[in-house]
């Protein structure tokens, strides 16, 4: 039987980040991926023979420190910025918000001069709040009662908050708990601007913008650098995982794909290794699971190994995957009314108002599928022609809400998407050569994402910080000795930041090694 110091289960950016850091520190590390591709759901794969499509996320930005520490540029990471976000408006008006704030103010002015006046102040406030969140994101969440390290973290955060100034301090606190509808109504009057800015707050969330605490999800996306102005990598987001994999390998980590269903071997309450579908067993000193908590503890571990109370907490985690991905292979560059060629390199959003987003969600609440969806559209080939044969294009659509519970067939989602987008790009249907639809069911079946949730569990305050993935186990540990979590299920949650992986390594390294040294 082969032995490793660490086995990492799964190979999303968090898993590979953890593996790379551990290997860099000299550990013997094995990464095991159940599916055929390194990256799990964060991959760019070939569809229709000659087109490259992202499987789940089409954007994401690893934390700067990870890019630097692991020298990812040397391993082929080339960031492509998306410097604008455009709103698809039913009346055909052009509304492209550039990342440059002065230029953005000018654009907003044509919708509302008042809003233009407030835009920079608003962005400054959300910058502050997301900056605060970012600080919390680089720390292990506290336990209750807090340890000495926790108290230190709290002090750091409180001083950070105080440092913003009194008024700013309470404003940031309000933002964290507010509904995004409430927030935007305080600042702006233009429905178009509110729709566009509010859409990020419901991205990936099974809630509408009227719901309490939705601003938190907006700040989350901003904190991980994936808010309004997003980034991808040359070759698609899959290149991010490829670069990470290369870095991990360069430090000696081994990567295996196609491992099939993996279970954790538990001996006397201690995770001692894994067993593959083939029956092969591999032992390790520690196992780090990148999978979500429900999959890890109810599929990879035999539930009787865990206390009933813990199993109940795992069962209570809310997943409700509500996003489908649609990739289209196009014969040419799509033409949208009011969208310039330059804006096609950015993100296009169908969210003309807050009420539109809420209505998109209304059906989902009852487990039904809304025919008035919230869409985010990118045409990655506009900035990266390598993703399609010459002259051809790939269009990628994030469709929400397609609730897991509704189990809506892919062809219906495709039809609806084409219907909606054809209102803005009349020639679109005639340009479609092929299509690929990935539903929440597909995510669950192909990548073991519970209920197809791409974020390892809803990004709500109820499942954030010291409550993520379950209360009492937010320190990347599990009730089983030597079994850890590092994925989107852990703090700071979903997205391609890699912070979960890095935090987990720090936590396991710092606290456990300190403890081990004491023993």
């Amino acid at each position: 039987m082969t032995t490793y110091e660490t086995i990492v289960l799964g190979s999303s950016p968090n898993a590979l980040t953890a593996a790379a850091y551990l290997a860099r520190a000299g550990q013997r590390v094995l990464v095991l991926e159940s599916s055929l591709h390194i990256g799990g759901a964060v991959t760019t794969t070939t569809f229709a023979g000659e087109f490259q499509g992202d499987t789940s996320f089409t954007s994401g930005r690893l934390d700067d420190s990870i890019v630097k520490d692991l020298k990812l540029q040397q391993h082929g990471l080339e960031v492509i910025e998306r410097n604008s976000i455009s709103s698809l408006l039913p009346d055909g008006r052009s509304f492209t918000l550039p990342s440059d704030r002065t230029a953005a103010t000018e654009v907003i002015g044509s919708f509302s001069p008042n809003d233009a006046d407030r835009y920079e102040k608003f962005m400054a406030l959300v910058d502050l709040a997301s900056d605060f969140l970012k600080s919390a994101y680089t720390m292990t969440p506290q336990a209750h009662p807090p340890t000495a390290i926790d108290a230190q973290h709290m002090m750091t955060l409180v001083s950070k908050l105080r440092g913003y100034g009194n008024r700013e301090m309470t404003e940031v606190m309000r933002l964290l708990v507010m509904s995004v509808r409430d927030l935007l109504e305080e600042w702006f009057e233009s429905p178009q601007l509110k729709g566009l800015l509010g859409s990020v707050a419901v991205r990936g969330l099974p809630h509408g913008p009227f719901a309490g605490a939705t601003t938190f999800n907006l700040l989350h996306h901003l904190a991980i650098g994936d808010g309004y102005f997003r980034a991808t990598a040359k070759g698609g987001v899959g290149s991010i995982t490829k670069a990470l994999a290369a870095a991990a390998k360069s430090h000696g980590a081994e990567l295996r794909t196609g491992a099939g269903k993996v279970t954790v071997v538990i001996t006397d309450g201690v995770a001692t290794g894994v067993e593959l579908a083939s029956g092969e067993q591999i032992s390790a000193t520690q196992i780090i699971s990148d999978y979500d908590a429900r999959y890890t503890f109810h599929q990879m571990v035999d539930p009787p190994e865990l206390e009933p109370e813990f199993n109940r907490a795992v069962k209570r985690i809310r997943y409700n995957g509500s996003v489908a991905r649609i990739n289209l292979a196009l014969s040419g560059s799509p033409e949208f009314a009011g969208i310039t060629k330059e804006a096609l390199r950015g993100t296009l959003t169908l969210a003309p108002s807050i009420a539109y987003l809420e209505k998109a969600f209304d059906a989902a609440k009852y487990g039904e599928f809304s025919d008035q969806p919230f869409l985010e559209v990118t045409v990655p080939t506009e900035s990266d022609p390598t993703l399609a044969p010459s002259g051809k294009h790939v269009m990628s659509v994030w469709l929400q809400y397609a609730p897991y519970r509704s189990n809506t067939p892919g062809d219906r989602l495709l039809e609806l998407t084409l219907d909606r987008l054809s209102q803005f790009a009349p020639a679109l249907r005639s340009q479609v050569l092929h299509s690929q639809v990935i539903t929440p069911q597909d995510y669950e079946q192909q990548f073991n994402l519970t209920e197809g949730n791409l974020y390892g569990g809803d990004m709500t305050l109820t499942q954030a910080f010291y409550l993520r993935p379950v209360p009492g186990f937010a320190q990347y540990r599990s009730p089983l000795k030597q079994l850890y979590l590092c994925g989107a299920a852990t703090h700071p949650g979903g997205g391609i930041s890699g912070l979960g992986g890095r935090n987990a390594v720090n936590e396991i390294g710092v606290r456990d090694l300190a403890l081990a040294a004491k023993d």
Partner: protein
Amino acid sequence: MNNHKYDAIVIGGGHNGLVNAAYLAKAGKRVLVLERRHTVGGATVTEEIYPGFKYLIASYLISLLRPEVINDLDLARHGLEIMPLESTFVPLPDGNYLADWPDHDATKMEIARHSKRDAEAYDEYARTMRRLAVALRPLLDMIPPDPTSVSPKDLETMARVRGVLDQLSQEDFYLLSRLMTMSAADFLDEWFESPALKGTKATSGVIGSFMGPRSPGSGYVLLHHYLGEVDGVFRTWGFARGGTGALSQAIASAAREAGVEIKLDASVARVNVKNGAATGVTLENGDEYSADIVVSNADPKRTFLKLVDSQHLPEEFVHDVKRYRISSPSCKVNLALDGLPEFTALPKGKEALLRGSIEIAPSVDYLERAYDDAKYGGWAKKPFMDALIPSLIDPGMAPPGKHVMSMFVQYASSDLEGGWNEEKKAQFLDTVIDTMAEYAPNLKDLILHKHIMTPWDLERTFGLTGGHIFHGELALQQLFFLRPSPQWSNYRTPLKNLYMCGSSTHPGGCITGAPGRNAALAILEDRP
């Protein structure tokens, strides 16, 4: 022109204004309460709009009245008699029903009829909610700290808040953290499976709030209503003999005994300001009253956007007041009835159930759809209702053999598209009665008189902005040290000598008396 000098003037004789005045007077202050209407109580009134029938035109139940207030003001001696509501009756569309009784075991057996599992979970649920409510109660009586301040007093209060959280067990700390941020529906799903039980429980998460039970944030409102629970059985709400107006009369009587002067039909037009400090008020009729301090029982929008000239206030504060959320989905319907409504779902021998709450809330989805209908500026096609037949509890509420029915109704938007008018009022009233008649088919034949208070009527009648019964949403960004505005949650205002004492201050709405009492404590700190 008259001029009179007082230590304190309280604008508005709502229950909190009266409580505030009584506490100040007991501390030796010369206090004047100015009430716009012909009677004290604000929204806590009983009115005979149709001869012989006493209507609860706004608030209808007492659940959270602070025991300190009852004791300190000796309200029992002043005529307050709270009769516990015996039960809740939830008729269901399929002809079945769910009931809860004052007796825990009887309720458990009843729940078992719907789900054995729920009956088992119910014990633990009741214990847990009670435990949380008891643990958090000290927060209700606190003057909220300013988290940005490093003054010894604020640091001490913050330490007390931490103390409250620290004494929670690990399990309760996590549960509280989750409940504060989640939806009532999600929370109840963790406990129960029966749609009827979840429906009736979820009502506590949405009463008075413009949210559905699936909105995160409704979990807190649920907890808010449990803070008044006294003995672990469902929600224990009380009914004041003579209606909620009798409570106001009792507080007014205590206040008068302590020396408070109460002026009715005295509508305040503005707060007078000299040298950056409040000096008194001027009434609509031109009369002026001066005082060392002025306390407003009105909501912040009314106080700071109408009564105080905004030139006296910091721009930032005016901004905070403007953004304060106060849209409301709540209406009140009263019916004068020629006899008792007969509920199809009510089994023979269980007529006693009509003496309690009658709740039309058969499921979480029912409530959520009612919210969906209203949230874009409409009203619920099938509204949620919390009804009472006060004349069964207190026969003095209607002539012999006749009855009154009080119905708290949600959702109908204060931001109704096109605004409310007589025609729309009549239409919504029909919707309410039609919905209730689905459960009590003889209802329509019994109606002698009907009366509705829409959010606009509540605003016009009582001066509640947006008709909001809690003086503003119990949204997370409007709680505790953020209510009504960051840095001004301690009952003080940026205008010197002006204070707030209404439901827009901590701990918020319902008939608690806590804002009135806490504000008096804050005032007495400043002016012993």
